[in-house]
């Protein structure tokens, strides 16, 4: 018991000052002719807390995750973190139409391709 008490006290001594470690969220990335679709696991991130920035071919996803406990900590396997991941994005993403949805701690990010980079079927005309 004494160990556990000590852990709890330690937490109290270093309140907001402790820097949350930066963590890379796990992602799945898919692509079809129309878009690039990215899913990122970020449990505990509220949708208002997430910052997505697409600029100069760099996509940055950033979000703090705060876990509010209660009472004495018994064991901890996850904690406060700063999720951050940067991707370089291929040319031809229509930045105005990027769409982000956050559901059950999973970010879905739709990056639509602009018309110019979509593959085009060229009909062969009969000579």
């Amino acid at each position, binding site marked *: 018991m004494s160990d556990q008490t000590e852990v709890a006290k330690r937490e109290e001594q270093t309140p907001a000052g402790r820097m949350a470690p930066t963590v890379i969220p796990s992602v799945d990335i898919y692509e079809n002719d129309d878009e690039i679709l990215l899913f990122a696991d970020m*449990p505990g*991130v509220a949708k208002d807390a997430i910052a997505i920035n697409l600029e100069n071919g760099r996509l940055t996803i950033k979000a703090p995750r705060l876990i509010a*406990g209660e009472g004495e*900590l018994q064991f901890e396997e996850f904690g406060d973190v700063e999720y951050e991941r940067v991707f370089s994005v291929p040319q031809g993403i229509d930045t105005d139409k990027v769409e982000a949805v956050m559901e*059950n*701690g999973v970010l879905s990010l739709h990056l639509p391709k602009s018309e110019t980079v979509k593959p085009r079927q060229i009909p062969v005309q009969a000579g």
Partner: protein
Amino acid sequence: MPARWNDFDQIFGAMDLLRNRMGMVNRLFSDFEPQWGLSSSWPAVSNLPRTNLYDADDHLLLKAAVPGLDKDEINIKIQGNYLEMSGSRQEKAPEGYAAHRLERGGETFFSRSLTLPAEIDSTKVEAKLKDGILTLRLPKAESAKTKRITIS
């Protein structure tokens, strides 16, 4: 556990290196490379949900990270001081898409059981799911509560 965070960082830092190396194999989409070198990643070592447990005198509080799960996909069983959580993520890859990077584990199933430090009154347990975090408020059974004895 004085250096808890550091310990984790070391363990997962190593995991990260490994993952980076393994990543070499599936770097198919070279235009879409993430920039590595951020301090520490925290990949799931297994697919067991990461869980925290707190003791707040009259109840225990359990938090588990279950990203992508709906509330109907999680089962919780409690008997005395034994708790079992299980769940499955019914996620399908989107149809007609090519996959460039798959780190999230796709469809997953987990089952995790814990022995709690106190008997729980299972009729008063409250469970909430928000932003991919499952929170269980587990009121202690009367017999397990700490009693303060006033000296008369």
